[in-house]
């Protein structure tokens, strides 16, 4: 009956990112990568805090945030379940966007850029593109 949950959270206390945000972000990441699918159960607050030694209210706050964004829903007495996925096809290996990015990355490397340079460039473009869009 107690089917194990599909994700496990890693909390980095030194990251400066609020703990509940780390849970939100890691859940979204798992949704994007297809590790979590609709119908999957998120770990209970008890399971999360037992493994991470963080305050249970933090987990509940993160789950409320995910619920507010319509990604999960709480079913009383059963747990919190994924209702939809994020980014959908973008995550799949053969998606055109991914192929284009892979192609671009290869060209950047051929042009003599180091891994860190590519990463910095990508982040800079990413930031300017999504500037002022949203937080968290």
């Amino acid at each position, binding site marked *: 009956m107690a089917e194990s949950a599909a994700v496990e959270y890693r909390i980095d*206390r030194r990251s400066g990112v609020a703990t509940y945000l780390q849970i939100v972000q890691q859940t979204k990441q798992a949704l994007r990568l297809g590790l979590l699918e609709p119908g999957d159960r998120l770990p209970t607050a008890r399971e999360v805090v037992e493994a991470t030694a*963080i305050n249970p209210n933090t987990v509940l706050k993160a789950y409320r945030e995910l619920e507010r964004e319509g990604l999960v829903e709480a079913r009383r007495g059963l747990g919190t379940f994924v209702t939809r996925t994020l980014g959908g096809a973008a995550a799949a290996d053969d998606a055109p966007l991914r192929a284009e990015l892979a192609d671009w990355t290869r060209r950047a490397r051929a042009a003599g850029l180091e891994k860190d340079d590519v990463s910095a460039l990508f982040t800079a473009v990413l930031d300017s593109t999504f500037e002022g869009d949203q937080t968290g």
Partner: protein
Amino acid sequence: MTGAAIEATGLGMKYRGRGRGWALRDCSFRLPAGRVCALVGPNGAGKSTLLALAAGFLRPSEGTVRVLGSVPGQARARMAFVAQDKPLYPQLTVDATLWAGAELNPATWDQETAERIAGDLPRDARVRDLSGGQRTRLALALALGKRPELLLLDEPMADLDPLSRHRLMGALMAEAAERSTTIVMSSHILTELEGVCDYLLLVDGGRVRLGGETEDLLAAHTLLTGPVQDTAPHTVVESRTAGRLQTALVRRQGAVDTDVWEAAEPSLEELLLAHLRSPEAPALLTPSAAAGQAVATV
């Protein structure tokens, strides 16, 4: 969830003999039920005295403290307390200690919880032969086996290695998640509590300096960096200057002039250290932490 786990009004404790004076004076605060509260402060600040009063071991010299809605003595069956020195009967074995827990708490004892916390402690070993960390684990097993509504822990993790500390803290949080247990943990090691506690009581010099939800307390303060000039109308907690640069931790009164100041939310550690370094800074209790009529400044 709306009730108070602990409510102190004008609480004071004076120890007799050798001019030891007041360990705690004029303490008024409220801890709502269901919180995980950090009781922080330097050594000798009165943390242990406050916990001993709440546990009903001491009779206050003045004022009152109510626990779970009654005097501490009557709430005994519903609360657990683990003192700093982890008192256990040295001549009993681990198993016998858990058995004693069952005998002394017939109404609430949960052997399974106790066994889970006790983990791989050698069951036939006598308490006197256990290491400090093992004793801590056993003391916590006894406290959690009782399934308390309120759990008071005085420096609980001091002699644990990082792995055991993480595991026990996880077990504590799981208990809090499952049963909405109110937990009060005293410590002078701040990193032990960050991320764990959602409520804060800063005790210093026998008084409560800060009390309330950690988030609210952090949000009420701002770390200002800018030119050396008056920070009015904000209340300064601590201000330091280096050359032409001033860094001040203030309690905001209205909006911060961002043309002059660079503003940032302080970390928990910055907030606590600033208050400890500035004993004259006024106390701050958020509305949920203010006891009865004795509402302190905001």
